[in-house]
């Protein structure tokens, strides 16, 4: 029995030749069809979520993480439960909130058109995504965001293990969520519970396998 029971993988990359971006969406290993890469996240939101207009206010990192968390939690099929403090959200990436940072910087770049945008500024922290997921699902447990030099399964497995030292934590929505622009991102989200304790090496290998 594997430690990771539900996972979602979303990748999208625009090639530097200006061609059609390549994308991939798989949920628990099953491919999910989408209309195209340019509007991938909005298409997924409309087709499979649709009841959370706050989605349209979110920055690219939050859109990516939010859509993925929704599909993942639907697959888990425990959405009616009250998790309270027993579920946390701990995410990892390398780019922090860089996509939104660049967008905010644009609003203060020109002294003659100086309009700092509060709605962009609030998203210039990566952990706002963990907050969005906590709000949507009423999770009161630990939320944290850890930035690493690069995708690193061992560091992620350690980070996950560290969170489970919190005695109230029973399960964690966790994984890698990296976003460089609206059409360039890489995500692997999954759910684990406290049975990962003492099985960090196994967990690390499972993450490695899914990331391929």
């Amino acid at each position, binding site marked *: 029995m594997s430690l990771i029971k539900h996972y979602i993988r979303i990748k999208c990359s625009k090639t530097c030749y200006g061609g059609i971006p390549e994308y991939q969406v798989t949920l628990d290993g099953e491919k999910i069809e989408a209309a195209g890469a340019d509007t991938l996240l909005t298409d997924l939101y409309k087709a499979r979520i649709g009841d959370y207009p706050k989605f349209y206010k979110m920055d690219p990192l939050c859109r990516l993480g939010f859509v993925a968390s929704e599909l993942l939690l639907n697959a888990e099929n425990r959405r009616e439960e009250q998790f309270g*403090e027993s579920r*946390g*959200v701990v995410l990892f990436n*390398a*780019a*922090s909130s*860089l996509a939104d*940072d*660049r967008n*905010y*910087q644009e609003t*203060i*770049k020109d*002294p003659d058109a*100086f309009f*700092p*945008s*509060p709605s962009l*500024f*609030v998203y*210039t*922290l*990566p*952990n*706002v*995504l*963990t*907050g*969005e997921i*906590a*709000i949507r*699902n*009423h*999770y*009161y*447990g*630990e*939320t*944290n*965001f*850890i*930035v*690493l*030099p*690069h995708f*690193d399964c*061992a*560091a992620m497995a*350690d*980070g996950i*293990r*560290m*969170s489970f*030292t*919190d005695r*109230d934590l029973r399960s964690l929505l966790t994984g890698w969520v990296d976003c460089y622009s609206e059409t360039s991102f890489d995500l692997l989200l999954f759910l684990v519970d406290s049975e990962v304790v003492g099985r960090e090496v196994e967990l690390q290998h499972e993450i490695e396998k899914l990331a391929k």
Partner: protein
Amino acid sequence: MIVKLADNIISPLGVTTGENYEAVKAGQSALCLHKGVKGVPTPFFASLLDERILSVEGDYTKFEKMCIQSVETALAQCDVDVSSDRTLFIISTTKGNVSLLAEGGEHENLLLGVAAQKIANHFSNRRTPMVVSNACISGVCAQIEAMRALTLGLCDYAVVVGADVQSPFIVTGFQSLKAVSPEACRPFDQERKGLNLGEAAATVIYGTAERAQDCWQMVCGAVRNDANHISGPSRTGEGSYLALRSVLQNANPSDIAFISAHGTATLYNDEMESIAISRAGLIDTPVGSLKGYYGHTMGAAGVLETLLSMCAVDDHTVIGTRGFERLGVSCPVSVTSENRTTDKRAFIKLISGFGGCNAAACFRKGGEE
């Protein structure tokens, strides 16, 4: 148990923890009005660090120099093999080198992990560093992660360094949110008008020991979410209360000298904290905020305020809340502007941030009494 081995604070008030504590105890503040500084069109009150006080040389940004000098100063006080792969670097920052964005082009050390690696590599440490970027609570989260890594035996030493550098990016952002006070901030006061921003770096090195003896011990810590709003605190103080409640499972309220609150002096933060403290049954425990001395130093705040609280307990003192005059929150928490005395040996650091995150941690001098 997890014990503090060494520490440092670099701020406009001094380049050692001791200098900083003496300045704060004497009521000094680094906050002042800045006009036309850093290309920000609107004047702002802040505590800014003069780069010339930094002695680190080499191809480093101000953020990196602050971190390196702070870690170097702390290392000189202890016998830690910093280059060992059993030593883990944990960097606490919200925006790192974000000011490089204004220069255009691609800077690799805009990436927080790359900047962290550069800092660790300066000390010949090749282990993958962790950057905790959990908004304003990063500094307490980073210490909680250090405590856990040590408890689980994932490392022998943890070097936690928190820092942030102010830039037009951050200052204009907080101005656009209407969160910035036009004067020196006034935590928990009736007339409070918002926060001030600040620059600092603070380092704490933790290790393990059989007995705490005369050391500072990190007892426990917890992180909880409000599940309420991404940029405003919960009206019921939910996450902050839950974090406090969790910490109180391992800490006796009668041992607590004071709560070092976040106390940013925004209308909503201070009100929320008063509710959380009251709900946790700590209404009679002295409460203080250090923001009137330093402003909000973001990634540094959780580490800096923990270290100054340790100095205060060592000095049998509850530091007064600078800028406070008359209580302006709905729950009657025990805040004073004057320093008070205490003979208790433990304190709680409380902190909250964007994304609805909250953390609390308890620290105690010596072992169980």
